[in-house]
């Protein structure tokens, strides 16, 4: 137990510290790198909870894909720090408001726990004991057996979002030369080469 408690405090402390560094570091690339560190420690906390599937998916999706794209964009931006400072004050009220709402919501979740401990268990599906079913299988049962239509519609919404993003950013440029590999391969010798007799002293 001591080892687990130590691991928890280690992960939690690094996660909070790196989350603070995300918003306080001057260099945006460092911010993204700290964000990745925070994701990692969140994955560590998931593993301590016994939710190893969620931990791995967190690393694959957020660290392996989303943060790479973040980093990709941020690296190529020419960011002016002074301008950022200016914007910081301008957006501070909105940010503070969102933070406050999140804090109140978290408080309400914790409050519900304290006031009626049975409420949480009544609201959701019974969780099978972890020694009988791996949590991958348990998640699969919930998603594909009980909530399959909701799951499918979530997928459809994501598809629509993806199509929308592509439509918004697609630009048809004129005069772009594209390679057609099939056409290149299907070219024959007599279409490509013409043999000519050139008498010396005169051009083709």
């Amino acid at each position, binding site marked *: 137990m001591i080892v687990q408690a130590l691991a928890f405090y280690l992960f939690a402390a690094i996660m909070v510290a790196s989350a603070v560094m995300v918003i306080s570091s001057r260099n945006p690339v460092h911010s993204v790198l700290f964000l990745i560190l925070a994701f990692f420690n969140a994955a560590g906390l998931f593993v301590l909870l016994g939710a190893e599937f969620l931990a791995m998916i967190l690393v694959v999706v957020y*660290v*392996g894909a989303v943060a790479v794209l973040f980093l990709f964009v941020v690296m190529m931006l020419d960011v002016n720090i002074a301008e950022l400072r200016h914007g910081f004050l301008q957006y501070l009220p909105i940010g503070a408001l969102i933070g406050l709402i999140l804090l109140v919501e978290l408080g309400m979740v914790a409050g519900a726990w304290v006031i009626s401990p049975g409420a949480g268990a009544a609201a959701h599906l019974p969780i099978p004991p972890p020694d009988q079913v791996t949590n991958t299988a348990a998640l699969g049962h919930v998603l594909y057996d009980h909530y399959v239509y909701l799951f499918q519609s979530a997928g459809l919404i994501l598809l629509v979002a993806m199509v929308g993003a592509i439509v918004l950013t697609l630009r048809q440029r004129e005069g772009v030369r594209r*390679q057609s590999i099939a056409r290149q391969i299907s070219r024959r010798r007599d279409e490509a080469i013409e043999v000519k007799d050139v008498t010396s002293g005169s051009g083709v």
Partner: protein
Amino acid sequence: MNLFWEGYAWPTIVIVAQIIAMIVPLLVAVAYLTYAERKVIAAMQMRKGPNVVGPFGLLQPLADGVKLLFKETILPAGANRVVFILAPVLTFSLAMVAWSVIPVDEGWAIADINVGILFLFAISSLGVYGVIMAGWASNSKYPFLGALRSAAQMVSYEVSMGFVIITVLLCVGSLNLTDIVLAQRNVWFCVPLLPMFVIFFISTLAETNRAPFDLPEGESELVAGYFVEYSAMAFALFFLGEYANMILMSGMTTILFLGGWLPPLGFAPFTWIPGPIWFFAKVALVLFLFLWVRATFPRYRYDQLMRLGWKVFLPFSLLWVVVTAGALLAFGWLPK
């Protein structure tokens, strides 16, 4: 005292011993993979390869290592120091960390976790950070271009790799690496899933930035790509990381498609040979394919590389997932 010894100290010692027993042979394998690469390519090009240091040039990797160790580490003036040093360390340590879940024989893994294949996939998808960080921190144009190429390339091929893994998982019904190997007792997955095996192998070439997909370090355009600015041990760490990743990917191919430690046929002369030897023989075979490809194929052009990843492999592997799932369901072969 007794509780401390049995509860904490002894397990720690066992784990450290296991880690050392895994890492040391791995590092030796990495060193001799560089030697094997030079020898194999030399043989294919009718040269001799390294043959001066030691008998048959066998001490060449050590000589190279010592040379790199004693060179001066140069930090470019414009570089972002912390990230610059962190990048090779990250690349190298990620390549080592992934080996903690690889089962060399039944029960011979440091950690036989439930989600082993996801762990491997997660760690291999992190490899791109070493490259991006190196390219950005060098603060120089060739490394940056190399890093951008590499990031796009590795992210693209990860998608089709993910689908290949899903196909295998459909046939196994578990994310555990030992279960994946044991599910291949009757027939290795490279037989029924041959197209996916080919796609997976080509994707691993792209994922490890190996020829013919070594555009991130394309010498002719980018000098040496993302590690132009690195020297001495920092360079050596990138180099070791790349080769350790090659071995890791070969190990992954072996586990997913070539039946891990299982002998090719389940009767007498084959079963006499212990599992780890089969495992290493298969890894060596896949590594030989890596080297063979490098000696044979010219480098892909960048747009063709992207076309292959997104327009050929992705639709095909998606289709094959559907076909496999349909076949398993139709014939009632779904694993319990």
